[in-house]
């Protein structure tokens, strides 16, 4: 028997319900989803990233193929207009009638627009949907100044978006401080100042009474003028209302479902309304007199309803059905680079509670703890400017853990500069919820670790912890490490038996002690002879730091065969040769030279994915000869053999393309010439696209650059290959000089901190704090490293030389390129057979057939 479920709304919470139901695999369910917007669920938590370059597609929460599942019907741009509970049917705005057996309201909320005369003037906007953002972008383009009404969490997010559009940005707040709900006066003051230092103007305690035509007022030519109760006015070209939300409960009112006084469809612990066949979840629901305006409680409700429906429809004995039990409204977020967190009773409203405060006006940090009368339990807190302790404090509060003797030590900076002892994660109960967005407990994390998820990336994948807001990632990492240690899984990051150090530590030692040779490194910090793990790592670190010729006597023995012979070894012991073609640009004469050389040595030729030509089948002794000819034709080593910068792929860009907005080829060539030869923990691939069409596929690269009208967007940590991953926006609209500075810093920071053979995408997954952290380091220079990283890169750039040019002219090095030390003969194990007009290695069987016949490569 089929049960018809209609879900009204496909926002984050509505979609979570669908995902939960799909995961439970409830049989016989026909689900119709009515979505008012023209696109399915997207991530509203990260909505403002739309203004820093994240596309609507990237914000989507819908996994490919999700709505192709049988029994699931998505109706986009379809608004539910009427509900007839007696006949159990929904009528859409187009007049279509859809019957249901079970109905779920997931209609969310709408922005509250204060009832101010003039609030409907053109250019008075709201900030909730992607359409709202598109409208804001449109108005922003014709405005100089923008005002955001509302200095709460969403208002400040929105102010960032307005500022990112390059407008003079003002925030108008009715309350005497910003984020009045979450922070206290002290926190509000620091926040106010920090935000003003970012170039915004903050007006608190302002009661807007009217919005009128601004043209001509005070000689200004603004679109609007806002009139405040204190008699002052503010001219502006656009206004965004972000002064709170109101539950979308109008349909519920229409069908008499029971709505709270301040809005919200009243629900019980199973999120059922007064009609047993109708549920409400998310911001449209009211539970215990409260509407929960955060995503985590909404997700909780979705899970509760999914389980409830599943149990009903499968007629399962379900005694332990989960119930919604309210939610902790603690939050942590980053507003314009400023950390703000609020926990529990942030204002110290609990009778008898005591509080501790710390403020540092130079660093613009404010912290407050609210503890119980006996000083044993944490009740709440506020963190502004630095919210590092959020995860620890939240767990202490939620789990009622004992506070240390001096609770203030939890927020005071330690005088010796070392970090404070964090939360003893061992003391956390297994049931402690670590990721509230996805409801993951410490116990679940530990199970996943035991089952083999021993990297932060693997753990996220296995449990989904840290995949929504990311706030819990530091704590998740701590738990993972503690659990690994407990299970005796060595959290041993020693490189190999010769060095009891990680790659990062070795890099640091080489830098700090200015070590220039492997034997010194081994003598000071290692043991034994070294091996095929630590030698190439040392070679790479030495090259990244000092950039000496990799084949000079003291470095030669460290090089992997590819680096030792500056070519890529193939399965039969021959090599492939790749001359550099920066940006994929090559002259006809260059192509002819490559073709002529390939032909004269009988090489197999193939184009690479990095826009150059690969020549296969070269014997060791031929390599210097081939390179002499390539160098004479103007080519340099392509470093295809190294763990180093490979290529910078490009599209033709504005030079030829009708759509191009910047010279992508020129920039690609400049980047490739700047970074060529740079040794790194793994290979590095770049691309530059001349417009948003992205023909160079820059978002699949370690470093991807995409042209904008204003400059360049810089994406990092993408990967094709085995585990494809889209690169993420690090910074937008950069001029070329800044672009290069950020890439310098990014590459050197990666080289400094990555593990051996760790591509940037995996490295990024393991970074605590993820992209925000990386942006802090690279763009905001939070670690104060920028100058150092740039100087380190400058050394590498300034000391570049073509390795092949050096190798063919250095007689000692050149003498190594022969198969036999005591004969001019070639390797008799190498044999080729023709295929499609070129050579290929002979198979073992073919080789046996050749036995006794001298093997010669035919050349003309």
């Amino acid at each position, binding site marked *: 028997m089929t049960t018809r479920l209609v879900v009204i709304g496909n926002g984050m919470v509505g979609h979570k319900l669908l995902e939960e139901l799909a995961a439970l695999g409830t049989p016989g369910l026909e689900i119709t989803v009515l979505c008012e917007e023209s696109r399915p669920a997207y991530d509203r938590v990260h909505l403002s990233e739309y203004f820093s370059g994240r596309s609507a597609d990237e914000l989507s929460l819908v996994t490919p193929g999700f709505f192709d599942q049988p029994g699931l019907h998505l109706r986009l741009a379809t608004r539910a207009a009427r509900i007839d509970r007696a006949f159990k049917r929904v009528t859409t705005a187009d007049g279509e009638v859809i019957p249901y057996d079970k109905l779920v309201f997931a209609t969310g909320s709408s922005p509250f627009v204060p009832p101010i005369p003039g609030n409907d003037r053109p250019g008075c906007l709201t900030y909730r949907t992607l359409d709202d953002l598109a409208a804001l972008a449109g108005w922003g383009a014709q405005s100089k100044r923008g005002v955001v009404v509302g200095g709460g969490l969403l208002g400040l997010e929105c102010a960032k978006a307005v500022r990112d559009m390059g407008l003079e940005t003002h925030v108008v707040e009715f309350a005497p401080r910003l984020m009045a709900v979450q922070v206290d006066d002290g926190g509000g003051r620091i926040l106010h100042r920090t935000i003003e230092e970012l170039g915004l103007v903050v007006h608190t305690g302002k009661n807007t009474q009217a919005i009128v035509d601004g043209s001509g007022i005070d000689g200004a030519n603004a679109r609007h003028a806002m009139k405040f109760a204190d008699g002052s006015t503010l001219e502006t070209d656009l206004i965004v209302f972000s002064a709170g939300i109101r539950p979308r409960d109008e349909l519920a009112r229409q069908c008499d479902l029971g709505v709270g006084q301040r809005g919200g469809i009243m629900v019980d612990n199973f999120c059922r309304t007064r009609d047993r066949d109708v549920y409400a979840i998310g911001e449209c629901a009211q539970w215990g007199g409260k509407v929960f305006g955060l995503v985590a409680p909404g997700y909780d409700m979705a899970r509760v309803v999914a389980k409830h429906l599943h149990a009903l429809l499968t007629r399962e004995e379900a005694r332990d059905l989960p119930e919604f039990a309210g939610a902790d409204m603690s939050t942590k977020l980053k507003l314009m680079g400023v950390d703000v967190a609020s926990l529990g009773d942030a204002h110290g409203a609990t009778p008898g509670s005591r509080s501790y405060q710390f403020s540092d006006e130079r660093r613009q940090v404010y912290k407050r703890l609210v503890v119980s009368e006996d000083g044993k339990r944490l009740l709440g807190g506020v963190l502004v400017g630095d919210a590092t302790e959020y995860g620890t404090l939240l767990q202490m509060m939620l789990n009622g853990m004992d506070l240390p003797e001096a609770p203030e030590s939890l927020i005071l900076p330690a005088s010796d500069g070392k970090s404070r002892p964090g939360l003893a994660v061992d003391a956390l109960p297994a049931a402690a919820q670590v990721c509230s967005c996805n409801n993951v407990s410490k116990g679940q994390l530990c199970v996943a670790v035991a089952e083999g998820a021993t990297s932060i990336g693997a753990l996220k994948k296995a449990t989904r912890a840290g995949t929504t807001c990311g706030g819990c990632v530091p704590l998740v990492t701590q738990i993972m490490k503690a659990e690994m240690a407990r299970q005796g899984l060595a959290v041993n990051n020693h490189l190999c038996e010769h060095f009891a150090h990680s790659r990062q530590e070795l890099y640091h030692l080489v830098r700090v002690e200015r070590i220039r040779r492997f034997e010194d490194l081994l003598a000071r910090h290692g043991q034994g*002879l070294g091996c*095929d793990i630590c*030698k*190439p790592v040392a070679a790479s670190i030495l090259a990244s730091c000092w950039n000496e010729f990799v084949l000079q006597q003291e470095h030669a023995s460290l090089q992997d*065969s590819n680096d030792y012979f500056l070519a890529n070894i193939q399965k039969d012991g021959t090599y492939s040769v790749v001359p550099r073609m920066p940006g994929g640009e090559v002259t006809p004469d260059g192509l002819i030279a490559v073709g002529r050389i390939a032909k004269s040595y009988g090489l197999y030729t193939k184009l690479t994915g990095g826009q150059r030509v690969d020549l296969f089948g070269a014997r060791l002794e031929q390599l210097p000869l081939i390179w002499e000819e390539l160098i004479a034709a103007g080519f340099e080593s392509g470093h295809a053999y190294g763990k180093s910068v490979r290529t910078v792929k490009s599209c033709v860009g504005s030079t030829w393309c009708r759509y191009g907005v910047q010279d992508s080829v020129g920039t690609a060539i400049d980047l490739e010439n700047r970074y060529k030869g740079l040794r790194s923990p793994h290979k590095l691939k770049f691309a530059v696209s001349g417009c948003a069409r992205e023909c160079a596929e820059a978002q699949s690269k370690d470093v991807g650059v995409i042209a904008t009208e204003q400059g360049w967007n810089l994406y990092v940590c993408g990967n094709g290959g085995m585990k494809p991953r889209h690169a993420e926006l690090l910074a937008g609209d950069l001029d070329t000089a800044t672009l290069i500075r950020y890439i310098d810093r990014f590459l050197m920071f990666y080289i400094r901190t990555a593990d051996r053979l760790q591509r940037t995408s995996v490295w990024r997954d393991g970074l605590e704090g993820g992209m925000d952290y990386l942006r802090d380091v690279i763009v905001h220079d939070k670690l104060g490293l920028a100058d150092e990283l740039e100087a380190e890169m400058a050394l590498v750039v300034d000391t570049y030389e073509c390795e092949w040019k050096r190798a063919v002219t250095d007689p000692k090095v050149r*003498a190594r390129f022969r198969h036999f*030390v005591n004969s001019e003969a070639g390797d008799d194990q190498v044999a080729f057979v023709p295929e499609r007009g070129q050579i290929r290695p002979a198979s073992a069987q073919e080789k046996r057939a050749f036995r006794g016949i001298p093997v010669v490569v035919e050349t003309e």
Partner: protein
Amino acid sequence: MTNETSWISVCAVGDIVPDTGVCALVHGAQVAVFRVGGELYAIDNLDPCSGAAVLSRGLVGNLGERVVVASPIYKQHFDLRTGECVEAPEQAVRTWPVRRQGDHVQVGQADA
């Protein structure tokens, strides 16, 4: 095997970069000769795992007590003293007598 090994000089000691190997042609056979620390070692050059004659081009080092070379193709380690393949003992290679005679590196007949 008689004790009258016939030795062939294949190169000068200085022709082998310290801690690397070279390939020598010895009575028509390819022999990988390594100079590791102060010692010389010689094994077959043919890598039985890949069928390519490349062992002389591998990185050398030690794994515990063993002095080894890592094949540049699939990275298996071969014990330079015994020819044993650490990862796949069935894939052993032959060892060859090797010695230093003055400034010369000399290779003898392959061990059986």
